[in-house]
């Protein structure tokens, strides 16, 4: 203990001459451009595939029918309804969105006195952040579902010009499983996947033990949570 120990704390007084660090108007402060705030959905682009519903670990997303959107080929007519009493803003739904219609704005303030009001269908229920430009969007170069399409081999033109052998040679088992792995099993014929491939791929993994790790889910609409014994370990039995 020295004289310095007694006097040194008084240097705190120098802050009297400093500018205040308080944010003058915290109520209107914009979040960072990448901020993962409240959801937006482009209902025109959305096809209602339900992948966001599948990946949400909190069961916050339900696909609900929406007035004015018809069920037609390539569109289930359902749109995601998000329960903010469950959401954790992890943005997996944005990352996984097949059409990139689901995004996040950087709005973050929503206060209600009724807990049931926090369920909303983005894009359908009008909210003040619907047209916000900034926020989290799925980056173009990355998705958490498989992206690269397995190349299908064909006969060389020189060979096929004078033969009746099938030109398209099809996939090997491993390639077919890899290709089916891209499928999100939405049940809609869409550009990103061939639904039937996923169904065919539900053959027991024991048939293809080498690629058991990459086999597709057993059922398209099995909810991911809570997992039943059957869906948890299809390869165990």
């Amino acid at each position, binding site marked *: *203990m020295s004289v310095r120990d007694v006097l040194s704390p008084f240097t705190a007084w120098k802050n009297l001459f400093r500018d205040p660090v308080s944010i003058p108007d915290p109520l209107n402060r914009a979040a960072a451009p*990448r901020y993962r705030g409240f959801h937006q959905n482009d209902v025109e682009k959305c096809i209602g595939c339900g992948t966001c519903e599948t990946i949400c670990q909190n069961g916050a997303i339900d696909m609900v029918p929406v007035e004015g959107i018809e069920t037609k080929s390539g569109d289930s007519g359902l749109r995601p309804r998000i329960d903010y009493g469950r959401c954790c*803003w992890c943005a997996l739904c944005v990352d996984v969105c097949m059409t990139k219609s689901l995004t996040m704005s950087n709005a973050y303030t929503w206060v209600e006195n009724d807990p049931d009001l926090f369920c909303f269908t983005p894009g359908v229920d009008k909210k003040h952040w619907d047209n916000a430009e900034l926020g989290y969007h799925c980056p173009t170069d990355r998705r958490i579902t498989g992206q690269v399409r397995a190349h299908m081999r064909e006969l060389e033109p020189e060979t096929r010009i004078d033969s009746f052998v099938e030109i398209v040679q099809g996939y090997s088992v491993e390639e077919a499983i890899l290709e089916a792995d891209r499928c*999100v099993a939405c049940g809609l014929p869409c550009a990103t996947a061939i639904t039937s491939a996923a169904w065919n791929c539900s053959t027991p993994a024991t048939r293809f033990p080498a690629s058991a790790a990459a086999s597709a889910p057993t059922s398209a609409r099995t909810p991911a949570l809570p997992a039943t014994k059957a869906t948890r*370990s299809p390869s*165990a039995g």
Partner: protein
Amino acid sequence: MALYTPDRSQYPAKKADGTLDIDLASGKYLKLWQGPNHPGITGNMSVELTVCGDEVVEGKTHVGYLHRGFEKLMERRSFIQCFPIVCRICVPEPDFNEYCYAAAVEDLSGIQSPERANWMRALILEMGRINSYLMYLGGQAGALGLGVIGQWTTYARDLMLDRFEEMTGARIYHMFILPGGVRDGLPDGFDQRMEETLREIESTMKDVHDVMFHNAVFKKRTVGQGVIDPAWLDQYGVTGPNARAAGVAKDVRRDQPYLVYRELEFEPVIGHDSDIYTRSDVRRRDLLMSVDLIRQILAKMPRSGPLIADMPSMLHWKIPRGETYVRGECSRGEYGYYLVTDGSGFPRRVNVRGPSYTHAMALLERMIVNINISDVAALMVSLHTYPPEIER
């Protein structure tokens, strides 16, 4: 400099089985609950104190106020679905959970995260470490009545949270370190803003050094108080700054380098007296070392390249059978994830080894004996434990 009376004549005798013979009805002892709703507690936990006069003769840690059953919850979430939930395990420093979980999953699935992602991860972990230490310093000073330190460090921490926000898109739970890589690169102009923040933090730390570490009151109440005997380190599983303050250079970053720590220049910060003052000082110097590490990382990290490895579709991602233990050095000690997989799409078992558990339960109960009631808060804070991580 012991502040308690060495007279132990009125102290409880020990029974044959080693427990204390405390007769509450004798009127000599008093039960005191410190927590969970108490300003002198590190969070939502409590300590049941038995006091004799103003001196603690026995302390029992009570936790479970924040138990959410993470390890069970993760067993029924697929590997990608576990990723948002792990960071909730430790609120003030969530990134280590994300990193350890991602590293464990990568280890078992044989995925290599790209070079650039590793640098990004190291950057995030060091930023998180600074946040955690800043919070600690505020708490340590606050427990001894120096409220102003908390005001400064929380401001500095808030600047760091702003950097986190612009980089990861969230303030507290960043959910940025995906299995396989990271979500995004650095935003434009990040380096410059980071440098300004680091300068601000350094100037704050200079003030903290003057006001907190050269403070007669703080010294009087912390020097020689709450000593961890170096012999206890292995017995109680003490790691991190608590061990380094006792003179043992335990630092996973150096002992078993992960990410890019092999390429960075640093020396573990060591103290020798192992009391509250030394532990605070070790953390302060460790914080300044993290500032230096961040500068090194920003200077050396590659600015282009992939941020995430080629991953299988995470919707039906299955990981072969196996088990692994991944460790990292967080601001409180060794953080570890033990992951067992059974070839399905869900983890079979996830066990989190958080340093707070060992420090706050066994060690605190041992150390809390014979100290003054008013020093309990300072002692608890000096072990640097986070209740959400104790009970998960």
